[in-house]
């Protein structure tokens, strides 16, 4: 965190705050879905479908700031802020957020924090999904379920991570970049370098 510019830290924190709210909104949305699926005994499945949204800030922050730790810390902040605004999930949420952040960070680390193409972002979404699923297997007791359901929930969560975090995260960041507000950040430098190389 020493080499970070202050504005990068504050940007990451602001993203964490904004998405903490998005996360809480999706939590409520998930509750609605869950009540629909409750009678057939698949209530927690509702959350699996939209689970990817809870990884999105990792993808966006890492894609914009492009520094080691951006994926992890942004998710951690979103977790802390949800506790600050009084999410009933409490300190457990900070732990879950840290675990999800680590999952995404691991993928960026595997590419030495240098590659931020769409496949890598999608892989980071999938990475967060895999690690968080391993955690929920124990914490939420999914391990007590039949293998068919365990596997199908896993697949749905990974797909959700790829699409709702990876794809949607990149799309949102690119739209944001197009407005010009990210001129002072790595995402913009990377794009301008590429286009100047094309020109020469």
């Amino acid at each position: 965190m020493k080499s970070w510019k202050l504005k990068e830290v504050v940007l990451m924190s602001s993203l964490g705050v904004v998405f903490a709210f998005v996360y809480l909104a999706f939590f409520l949305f998930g509750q609605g879905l869950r009540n629909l699926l409750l009678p057939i005994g698949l209530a927690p499945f509702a959350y699996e479908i939209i689970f990817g949204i809870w990884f999105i800030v990792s993808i966006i922050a890492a894609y914009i700031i492009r520094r080691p730790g951006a994926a992890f810390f942004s998710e951690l902040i979103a977790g802390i802020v949800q506790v600050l605004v009084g999410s009933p999930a409490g300190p457990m949420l900070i732990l879950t957020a840290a675990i999800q952040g680590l999952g995404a960070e691991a993928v960026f680390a595997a590419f030495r924090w240098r590659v931020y193409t769409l496949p890598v972002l999608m892989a980071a979404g999938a990475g967060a999904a895999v690690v968080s699923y391993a955690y929920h297997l124990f914490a939420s007791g999914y391990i007590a379920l039949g293998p068919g359901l365990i596997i199908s929930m896993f697949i749905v969560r990974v797909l959700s991570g790829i699409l709702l975090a990876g794809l949607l995260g990149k799309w949102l960041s690119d739209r944001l970049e197009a407005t010009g507000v990210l001129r002072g950040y790595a995402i913009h430098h990377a794009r301008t370098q590429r286009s100047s190389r094309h020109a020469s």
Partner: protein
Amino acid sequence: MLQQLNPSVKAGAVLVPSILLSFSYDVFTPLVFLFLLLVFTWTWSGMPKKKWLMLFSPFFIGAAGFAWMTMLYAGDGYQSGEVLFSVWHFEVTEGGMEAGISLGLRSLCFIALSLLFVLTTDVTQMMHSFMQQLKLPPKLVYGIMAGFRFLPLFRHEYTVIRQAHRVRGVEAERTVSGRLRHFRRFAVPMLAGAVRRAERTALAMTAKGFTGDKNRTWYKRERVEAKDWVFAASLNGALLLVLAASWYFGYLSIFHWDAGRSQ
């Protein structure tokens, strides 16, 4: 009173039982622990019972959802005993029922534990403690606190964007694709606003001499005192006692392995 405890120790004290509890799949352990948590909450937190119940009761649906799913779809390892009843082509066995109820109760324990923390902790105190006890970098903590103060501004910004849309004749959307377009029209300007504000705040912080250096003074000292450890020890001691009792009476099961003393 829980309000005066150190937030870092309190968070840890609440987190450890949540993790320990994740290994038990019997009904006895979470049920007794939940009961003890209620006693803790009502004697120590100083919170009105009615308010607490209002916050806690909605989670019964979630707990029921967990329990019901586990009952219907329990894995082979957790199926045991007689078939109690069947729904469509699902057969609910005693073992599946036990695992289901256990998971439902466990999720209620999680909620009770975190309410114990969330409802008794001051935001600023928590961030200061995270910085002083958990050694989170000041850059990060002050960044979060600054971002957190933006919340009312975000709400204001949302209203402004909505009004701007309305003035230009943008109708409320009802279809799914319309909702998606609606989402984009709000998400991008709001994020752009957040980025701009973050940049301005960072500049202001630097201008006022904030370097993010760890050797700094604190306007508020957070300390860890004996009472913090008393709280942590009694909460975790309570769980250990419950686990021991559960083992002694032969109820305890860790995953689907019956760890309880055989009768």
